[in-house]
């Protein structure tokens, strides 16, 4: 039971691109005390819809309520609770220039990324991978004294 309560879930919400639709979706989570771990949103090409990916956690019962409540919102077209999916997350990390560029490059390569930018004072790395692996990458990156880490949130697509 305890475990089931905290199970991680990823859902996609397909919505009409109208004003304040994102606020409707997020305030539904807030009003009912549900947690949002990450959220990404962008228009779906060649359509009037947007794709929102929400990473959350809860029991099967809570998820059922979330799904149904989301569905009740007028501009929501579809709610997909992912069973089998491909998930990716992006992260940007800023390292001091004093770190070894080749070490950081190798680390990023191991996680499906690379050096995105090198300036006078810093190195910026970018990695896109599965969320668990992003977690591992961030742990590994700690050894190189990162100044700043920006995670992008999960995007997912049904297999």
């Amino acid at each position: 039971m305890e475990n089931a309560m905290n199970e991680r879930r990823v859902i996609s919400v397909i919505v009409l691109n109208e004003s304040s639709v994102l606020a409707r979706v997020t305030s539904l989570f807030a009003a009912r005390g549900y947690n949002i771990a990450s959220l990404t949103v962008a228009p779906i090409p060649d359509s009037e819809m947007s794709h929102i990916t929400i990473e959350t956690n809860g029991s099967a019962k809570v998820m059922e309520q979330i799904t149904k409540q989301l569905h009740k919102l007028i501009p929501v077209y579809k709610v997909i609770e992912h069973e089998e999916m491909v998930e990716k997350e992006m992260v940007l990390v800023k390292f001091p220039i004093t770190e070894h560029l080749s070490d950081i490059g190798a680390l990023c390569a191991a996680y499906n990324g690379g050096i995105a930018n090198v300036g006078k004072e810093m190195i910026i790395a970018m990695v896109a991978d599965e969320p668990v692996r992003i977690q591992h990458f961030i742990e590994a990156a700690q050894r190189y004294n990162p100044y700043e880490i920006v995670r992008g949130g999960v995007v997912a697509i049904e297999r």
Partner: protein
Amino acid sequence: MQMSGAQMVCEAIIAEGVKTVFGYPGGAIMHVYDEIYKQEGFEHILNRHEQAAVHAADGYARATGEVGVAMVTSGPGFTNAVTGLATAYMDSIPMVVISGQVPLSLIGTDGFQEIDAVGISRPCTKHNFLVRSLEELPRLLKEAFYIARSGRPGPVLIDIPKDITVDIGEFVYPDSVNIPTYKPTYKGNKKQIEKAVEAMKKAKKPLLYIGGGSVLSNASDLVRELAEKTQIPTVETLMARGVMGAKNPLLLGMLGMHGNYASNMAMSETDLVISLGARFDDRVTGKLSEFAKYADIIHVDIDAANIGKLVDVDYPIVGDVTEVLEAMLPLLDGIDTDRFQAWREILKRYDELHPQSYVDSDDVIKPQWAIERIGELVGENAIITSDVGQHQMWAAQHYPFDRPRQWINSGGLGTMGFGFPAALGAKKAFPDKTVINVTGDGSILMNMQELVTAAEYKIPVINLILNNHFLGMVRQWQTFFYEKRYSETDLTFQPNWKALAEACGGIGYDVTTKEEFDAAIKDAIAQDKVCFMNVAVNRFENVLPMVPAGGALFNMMLPQKGEK
């Protein structure tokens, strides 16, 4: 046709067939009011507070089943309307509220009387819009009415910036609505309905559990037919009073926190709950783990999110109660009604053991007596609205409701101050019916300015104040659960009700005896004026039975036999 945004608003209201609009003007909505002045398609009632305007539109909607319309200005006009929206939202009432907003160019500047109406009302509306251009105004007006009345009904807010009401453009009111993301389900799944019918045929102790959704769906005749055909005993929620008709032998009464003994025991012992438009509110279920513990559950609801939200459901049916019953009834041909004979006997015994009763008195008017008496005097002919408190529960328990929409009260939000303005709305819709607001000395003060509205427009509703000089329902909880510490519930200080009513253009009665009571009701009906009927009732009367909050339904505090 070319016209202003303000004219478009009026044209839409007329096109939707709305006869009465309630509201209160202000700067941001003045252009619309200027058009209201010029048109003759509907009547506008100037309530004396925006909250009351929205409740009045709500009462109009509850009495008729049509969409109620209220109009308010921006800023404080809108914020005053929020309680009205929330009240309608909790009870799924079809309503459109039109609010003025500061001009588009000022939105986001903290302009005078600017408030984020769409943001504030998001959790208490079915949907809301901020209109962004004149071009989209006709479509959004159409959508507002459509969304309000379709599917699970609810209030819709449409917030219109002032400049859009001035702009001139082409007006074509759409015939139909196409929102690709909004397609309510009306028909229940056929297979599920068949399975539910099989379960009904196999059950030993089935129980029909009728909720407000049956009223919203106008399913009363079909619900009665279902009960009749199957001979299954029936309980009603607070919101469903009147669906079965008070004299129906299959009706056990109301269930829940103040339900009667037989109803609550029936729910505790049934082996099959057939829920029709009820949502398993906590005031109904009591302790969830004990609720209908031995039963399978058939749950018919137009809102899929209601199904399985609180209790696990064995036969979920998403659909409109009317459509589901139309599909279900033919399948029940030949059901063996004798099967439930023993069960009906048990429940009859329960009812004989602890009937819905009270001990009357000759010295002081008992509130329950007052309710029964108006039932005898005006009965079927009246529409009863109520405020919130003990009087509301007594009315729900003791009034002989014969038809749906005869009983209008704020069930979900429990809004004190609802009853009087709602009565105005109901009376505007049904001028030939006697409309009585059963209220308390606490509640009536919350929207008493509506005396002026009622007097001005000659809307003769009767406010029956069951005056116990207490915030009675809170006092009752203090008696039972706070060792009689009557913290801030004593209303010994009172206005002169009669004088107050008269000062505002109405009439007043002070009533202390049964004779005076009868005389006052009769006079009030004859006078045909808004009135305050101030009835001194027993101060310490409690609403019983009572299931303490969070307790199991079968653990009721019952009236002591012979208690005075």
